[in-house]
């Protein structure tokens, strides 16, 4: 459904994408992971026709999307990272506008609106002004607008950011349903447990390059060894072979308990500021840690900043 080859893009001389390849088949979900500035949002922007690459190709449903962006747009759904709807209008009006813009007939609009609002728990909010919704409700409305045209290829860029647990579960259930219906989904996120819950494939970007790509289980098996993670009150100490990330200090280890005990003896007075010790079992997070040297976001209340996408 989506094939990207050799995608390259630079902003003012700073490379955002460096020859990225990506494929997503019908009924397949690919989680696009990577630290802030890795190039995820730039990739989505190019694939959806919002930006032009410096080099590379994008095919959607066999059509050259860079040369014929107008032809592929009816097949696409996009929920960008930034919330996008008309806050001074009612939920109903927002849905009607984007449905009509997608070319839905009156009957089709009614049917799709019903399906989408039920899937994302918006049915009772139809007459509310969009600007008055809670954060999670706004995120669900934002996502729903990308689904009205029954897209064959859906881009969700951090779709659960700021969403509460109920909203998050609604969105994840909706994504599962779409994939089961044959929709190809490109799912950008920092929340690694979501990716594990959704299954599918994983592509990890770093500094504009694909550093790992494959099935979720394969990625974990290949890179997700056990490890140890310390959390400190303040900056962690500098230990050889360990990676520092904010208040965290972490490393991969075949024998995490022994490694943790040895590290504590080397911390000196920094050990007084040690708040938590986590033994990491092989998961996507440990794989991500091994590949990028950074922590993923494992909890709903831990939010990451925006991906870099300079104008």
């Amino acid at each position: 459904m989506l094939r990207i080859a050799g995608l390259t893009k630079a902003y003012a001389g700073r490379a955002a994408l460096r020859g990225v390849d990506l494929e997503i088949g019908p009924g397949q979900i690919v989680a696009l992971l990577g630290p802030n500035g890795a190039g995820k949002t730039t990739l989505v922007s190019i694939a959806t026709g919002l930006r032009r690459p410096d080099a590379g190709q994008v095919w959607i449903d066999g059509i050259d999307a860079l040369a014929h962006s107008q032809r592929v747009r009816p097949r696409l759904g996009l929920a960008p990272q930034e919330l996008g709807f008309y806050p001074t209008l009612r939920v109903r009006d927002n849905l009607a506008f984007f449905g009509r813009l997608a070319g839905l007939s009156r009957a089709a609009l009614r049917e799709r609106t019903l399906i989408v609002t039920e899937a994302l728990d918006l049915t009772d909010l139809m007459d509310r002004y969009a600007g008055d919704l809670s954060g999670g409700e706004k995120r669900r409305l934002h996502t729903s607008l990308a689904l009205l045209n029954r897209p064959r290829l859906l881009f969700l860029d951090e779709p659960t950011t700021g969403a509460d647990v109920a909203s998050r579960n609604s969105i994840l259930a909706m994504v599962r349903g779409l994939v089961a219906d044959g929709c190809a989904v490109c799912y950008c996120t920092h929340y690694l447990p979501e990716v594990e819950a959704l299954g599918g494939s994983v592509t990890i970007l770093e500094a504009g390059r694909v550093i790992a790509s494959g099935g979720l289980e394969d990625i974990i098996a290949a890179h997700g060894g056990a490890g140890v993670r310390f959390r400190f009150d303040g900056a962690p100490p500098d230990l050889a072979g360990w990676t520092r990330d904010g208040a965290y200090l972490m490393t991969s280890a075949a024998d995490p308990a022994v490694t943790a005990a040895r590290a504590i003896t080397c911390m000196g007075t920094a050990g007084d500021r040690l708040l938590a010790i986590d033994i990491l079992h092989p998961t996507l997070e440990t794989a991500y840690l091994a590949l990028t040297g950074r922590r993923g976001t494992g909890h709903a209340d831990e939010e990451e900043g925006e991906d870099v996408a300079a104008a």
Partner: protein
Amino acid sequence: MSLRRSLVIARLNALIIAVDPWPMVTLLAMPLVLMAFLEPVDRSLLAGQGYVGVNGSEVAVPGMAVMFAFFWMMFAGTGFFREHGWGTWDRLRASPARPAEIMVGKCLPILVLMLAQMAVLGAAGALLFGLRVRGSMTALVLLVVVFVGALLALAMALVSVCHTLNQTMVATNLGAIVLSGLGGSFAPVALLPAWARAAAPVSPAYWALRGSKAVILDGGGLAQVALPIAVLCAFAAFGVAVTAARFRFGEVKIADT
């Protein structure tokens, strides 16, 4: 180019304006208030110029209608910046709508409202202030349509070159006051200082008011408004050319004031 998609976008933009009608009401009410102030002054000025059987509304009504038409340029501009602030601009661009369809859809409601404002102010001028058109109504309508089209094209040119909402608001508000004043909305151009009289033709207001005077006061027809209409068409062409050359759909505009 799909007219249907343009109309869908136009309908949405009309709805956005309708849910917050107070700015629109202000643009209708304020010129009527100012007309009441200016009518006696203009009556004296016209009498001094030798006009008989006039009541001042022949100058006051078109003067204020022209001035407040300029303020719609701000609405036309903010309509684009608001899409960026609301995060909907990228959604529009990623939709099946083509750039030209988005432009038409966003401009159409403003064009209709500008024309409606002109019609309402003209009708109110007739009912409240006894405005009477001595010349060709066809010529007057044509003049108004071309003037409004020129302002809208210039508004799009401003949106094209401005990067922030603040820049657009300052440019449109100052432009409205300076250009309408220069064109004769407050006082006849003949009474302005020499430098202002020399600069007056750079304002679309000057040509609109020159044409309206020829029709309303002097009983003129199409021949008498041909030159003002031609110049206003040139303003419109300039606005369209700048928009075509400078408008970037992918540009990130700053909507925060």
